[in-house]
């Protein structure tokens, strides 16, 4: 790490501080793994108990919108990875642009997700808001419930990520976040974004591709 990193209490030196920050973030991400883990367990158990109905229900998902959305997220992750790399070298302009871009891709993801919800709503498949009577089986209803919970939780995380990235782009662009001295902030936000991406990498196949 560069020597001119700012140090604050209770740290003795910059390296210690950097390591503590990174470690804190990794621990936090572990907690997020376990948070989503509960939902994944529910999905697996549901699939084990009702294999056929589960597959039937999954066939109603919009596979290609999901696939495209996965691509959008993966691309945004690339943008963030390069932006972080740039930020550590002090390339402020580049990071601003790439963070802005990644946040934009995040918005695209949410937009497509909203479109998907809308289609499902029109098919009468979206629980809570549309007519539960239209499900072909209770398992399909359950599947859609789980799907809604899982994707909504993910979308919430993504929305937070978008705010973080947009904030970063803003602060770097305005020069409020000195680079590369405060690069750690950028790194940490980047880690969060990638993690949200990883969650989707798992949600997509278990929900959409269970055919």
């Amino acid at each position, binding site marked *: 790490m560069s020597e001119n990193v700012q140090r604050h209490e209770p740290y003795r030196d910059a390296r210690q501080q950097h390591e503590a920050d*990174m*470690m804190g973030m*990794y*621990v936090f*991400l*572990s907690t997020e*793994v*376990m948070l989503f*883990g*509960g939902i*994944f*367990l529910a999905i*697996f*158990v549901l*699939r*084990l*108990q009702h*294999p056929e109905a589960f*597959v039937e229900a999954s066939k109603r998902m919009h*596979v*290609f919108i999901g*696939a495209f959305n*996965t*691509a959008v997220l*993966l*691309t945004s*992750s*690339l943008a*963030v*990875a*390069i932006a972080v*790399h*740039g930020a550590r*070298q002090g*390339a402020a302009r*580049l990071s601003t642009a790439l963070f802005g871009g990644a946040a934009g891709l995040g918005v695209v993801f949410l937009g497509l997700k909203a479109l998907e919800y809308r289609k499902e709503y029109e098919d009468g498949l979206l629980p809570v808001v549309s007519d539960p009577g239209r499900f072909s089986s209770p398992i399909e209803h359950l599947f859609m419930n789980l799907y809604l919970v899982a994707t909504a939780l993910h979308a919430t995380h993504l929305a937070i990520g978008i705010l973080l990235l947009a904030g970063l782009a803003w602060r770097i662009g305005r020069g409020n976040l000195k680079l590369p001295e405060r690069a750690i902030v950028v*790194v940490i936000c*980047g*880690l969060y974004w*990638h*993690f949200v*991406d*990883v969650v989707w*990498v*798992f949600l*997509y*196949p*278990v929900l*959409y*591709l*269970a*055919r």
Partner: protein
Amino acid sequence: MNAMTVIRLVFVWFALMGLLVTTVGASFFLRGPASMAASTGIAFIKAALIYWFFMHLSEERGLPRLMAVGAVTWLAILIGLSFTDYATRGFGW
């Protein structure tokens, strides 16, 4: 900016996109448990790529790596031991 690093990141991205195409394709050919195994397996590879290259695990020391693996292990405990129940419910009576 280090061009090599950027190129490496872009390569990873290509790999991820390739895996995405594979998993979507596979889902149309495979059924049942095989499909499940393929899609989660590919998801694990993708996640590993992201963790290793995008999330700096390649440059960190042992501890963060241990933590990333640890979280997955704990998830495996949760799912694995729960399945000792679900997978054997049908036996006996």
